[in-house]
């Protein structure tokens, strides 16, 4: 009889338990450093030129990459240094959430991940010394534990030379920790710094959330906002973003009038309560760092309460056109930073993008912003591989990153790493939701802010 009585209680608890564990893969994973030599006093070996800023064709700054010998640096080759590299192929593993709470459109992702490499093989095969790049993709389901699992698969089963995180802070952190334990280069767009700053093989190619805080404050000031609300996911990874916004606001003379954390799976009552509190606090702008799904939920609840503040946040996912596609008209007042501009200005920055899409994508798959994100990331990686030279290995690659002056793909603000700082983003673009456009999309309102 007791078990019968307990069953109704156990079922929902089991359901919740099954849906939890989102952060379990992040914490508790001990980092084992990759082989690292003492930092060199000079950044270039004797007799060789220091690698300069490596630029994409068409970009302003150019310095020929050192193709004679791998750059010296703190990394020393370990076991499996050249895994995933052969005379004719480099294997790159990408993980991203195409299912789960914050999905990225899978079709766009599947098409976009290869376009740049196809274009490069045809237009400039010498850039990668005659090698092709084979991209392996795995869905991490927006789950850190799954992210570690798929990263291991890509390395051990597919022989990936390096790993790339396509989105999701907790998933990126979890997989980057695995990569660092195994000496595998790991690149992603900037997310959090906590949990990543000490990882030797992790590199952020765009501004982290915290680094975007001052830019967000500047955007608020440009719009005449003096007081704003702050809504951030309750994952520990975002604590530093909350702190950074607090500091940046104080420095800019702005006030946080209402602040709250919201759960990753915020139910309707929670969303409505947050919106009501924001409305009652009189916030004309809200800085938020959540998934697109929760952002759209908040914006819709706001619209239902006749409350339409400026919704502002760091890049990348909330600024995707998928958000305007199904979030309009509620997201009309959304303004988001992004490492790339949107399609409206890409021709002036990189005319190859749409050309390549027309050439290599299926006829019914026009160029989109997911494709642009992937194109930009791959283009930056292409420059890094080129700068490393023909003798490609994991240590040589990472040495090149930390000793080069920077990489300018013409779309991102220049990416600059040092031995001590693997957060390479230097600027961002500003995107503004346009629900009147057909199709509904974000438009680029400012380029390269913060990049000097």
């Amino acid at each position: 009889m007791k078990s019968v009585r307990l069953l109704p209680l156990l079922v929902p608890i089991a359901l919740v338990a099954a849906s939890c564990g989102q952060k379990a893969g992040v914490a508790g994973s001990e980092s084992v450093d990759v082989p690292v030599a003492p930092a060199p006093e000079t950044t270039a070996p004797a007799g060789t030129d220091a690698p300069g800023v490596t630029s994409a064709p068409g970009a302003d700054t150019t310095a020929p990459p050192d193709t004679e010998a791998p750059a010296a640096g703190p990394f020393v080759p370990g076991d499996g240094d050249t895994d995933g590299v052969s005379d004719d192929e480099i294997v790159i593993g990408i993980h991203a959430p195409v299912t789960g709470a914050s999905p990225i459109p899978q079709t766009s992702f599947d098409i976009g991940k290869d376009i740049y490499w196809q274009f490069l093989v045809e237009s400039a095969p010498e850039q990668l010394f005659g090698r092709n790049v084979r991209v392996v993709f795995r869905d991490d389901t927006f789950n850190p534990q799954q992210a570690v699992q798929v990263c291991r698969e890509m390395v051990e089963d597919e022989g990936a030379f390096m790993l790339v995180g396509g989105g999701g802070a907790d998933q990126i952190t979890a997989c980057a920790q695995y990569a660092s334990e195994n000496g595998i280069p790991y690149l992603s767009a900037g997310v959090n710094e906590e949990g990543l700053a000490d990882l030797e093989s992790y590199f952020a190619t765009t501004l982290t959330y915290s680094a975007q805080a001052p830019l967000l404050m500047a955007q608020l000031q440009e719009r005449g906002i003096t007081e704003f609300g702050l809504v951030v996911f309750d994952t520990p990874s975002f604590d530093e973003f909350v702190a950074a916004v607090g500091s940046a606001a104080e420095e800019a003379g702005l006030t946080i009038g209402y602040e709250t954390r919201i759960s990753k799976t915020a139910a309707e009552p929670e969303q409505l309560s947050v919106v009501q509190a924001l409305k009652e606090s009189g916030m004309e702008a809200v800085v938020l760092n959540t998934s697109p799904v929760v952002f759209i939920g908040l914006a819709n609840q706001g619209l239902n309460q006749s409350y339409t503040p400026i919704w502002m946040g760091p890049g990348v996912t909330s600024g995707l056109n998928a958000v305007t596609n199904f979030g309009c008209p509620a997201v009309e007042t959304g303004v988001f930073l992004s490492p790339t501009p949107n399609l409206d200005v890409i021709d002036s920055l990189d005319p190859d993008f749409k050309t390549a899409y027309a050439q290599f994508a299926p006829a019914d798959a026009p160029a989109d912003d997911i494709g642009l994100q992937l194109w930009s990331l791959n283009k930056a990686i292409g420059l890094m591989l080129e700068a490393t030279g023909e003798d490609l290995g994991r240590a040589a690659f990472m040495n090149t990153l930390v000793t080069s002056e920077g990489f300018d793909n013409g779309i991102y603000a220049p990416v600059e790493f040092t031995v001590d700082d693997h957060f390479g983003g230097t600027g961002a673009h500003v995107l503004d939701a346009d629900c009147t456009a057909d199709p509904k999309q974000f438009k680029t309102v400012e380029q390269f802010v913060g990049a000097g």
Partner: protein
Amino acid sequence: MNDQQRRGLVIGLAIAIVLIAVLWLMDQEQSIVIGIVSGSAYGLVALGLVLIYKSSGVFNFAQGEFGGVAICTLYLLHSSGVPYGLSVLGALLAGMLFGFLTERIVIRPLFEAPRVIVLVATAGVALLAIALQQWLFDNQGRPIARAFPQRDRITIFGVQVSDQRLWLIGTLAVLAVVLGLFFTRTNLGLAIIGASQEPTATELVGISVRRLSTFTWVLAALLGALAAVIAVPETGQFTPGVMTAGYLIPAFTAAVLGGMTSLPGAFVGGLLVGIIYAVASSAEIFQDIPGTPSTLVVFLVLLGVLIVRPQGLLGKPA
């Protein structure tokens, strides 16, 4: 209404009065409104859960996806130019058809199987439905139009209540009463209860238990579909699996809280869960709890109720 139910009702009312008083003192009166407007959807899904549980003793994990199928159908029909009213009708029929197929293909072959096997089977149906939606929509969200455009029909404690919300609350209240009467006053309703408690005896008096099962599952599917087509458009958009991810767990909680055998209990449970979620999300005292305080508080309340009253607020003892 027997003594047990009367006691449950008194306890429920007492909790409601205490809750309202506490919320008032905490300056949380808005949470009552937020809880009622959002908890109504949980109540409607919970009605379907209770219906299946009353008739067959099964926790139906596919209940949310009866609504999932309906909301996808509503989107597909309306975006193809079908008038909204006809689209809603089509969506309800699609939900009912899905319930019918679930009963005929999954439930009926497992009629003699242990209930836990049927429970797992319903979870399988839900996962299959979600996977199909993900495939159909590339796992992306879609905008969904509402039936009634007015968003501020009335304003209570500063919370605007839309026509769509009023439709939802009204539907829930009417269904809870109508279904309650159906199961106590009609031959068919009594036959369903009889079939769940004494299937052999029910067959012996000439009632087809299997046919009753089909009827019950289709009715439960209709409730799930109703919940989806009324509640989801209020949020402006839907994603594949939204009914399971967003509504099923609170609805299960509501059903258990109200009493798994009580249809009015599902109604009360839904509203209570909505209110507790709202309070836990906004009240100052919960803000320092790490993680998701709303879920934690809801389950603490559930635990407390079940310790004091294992059959739920309005349910009958097993």
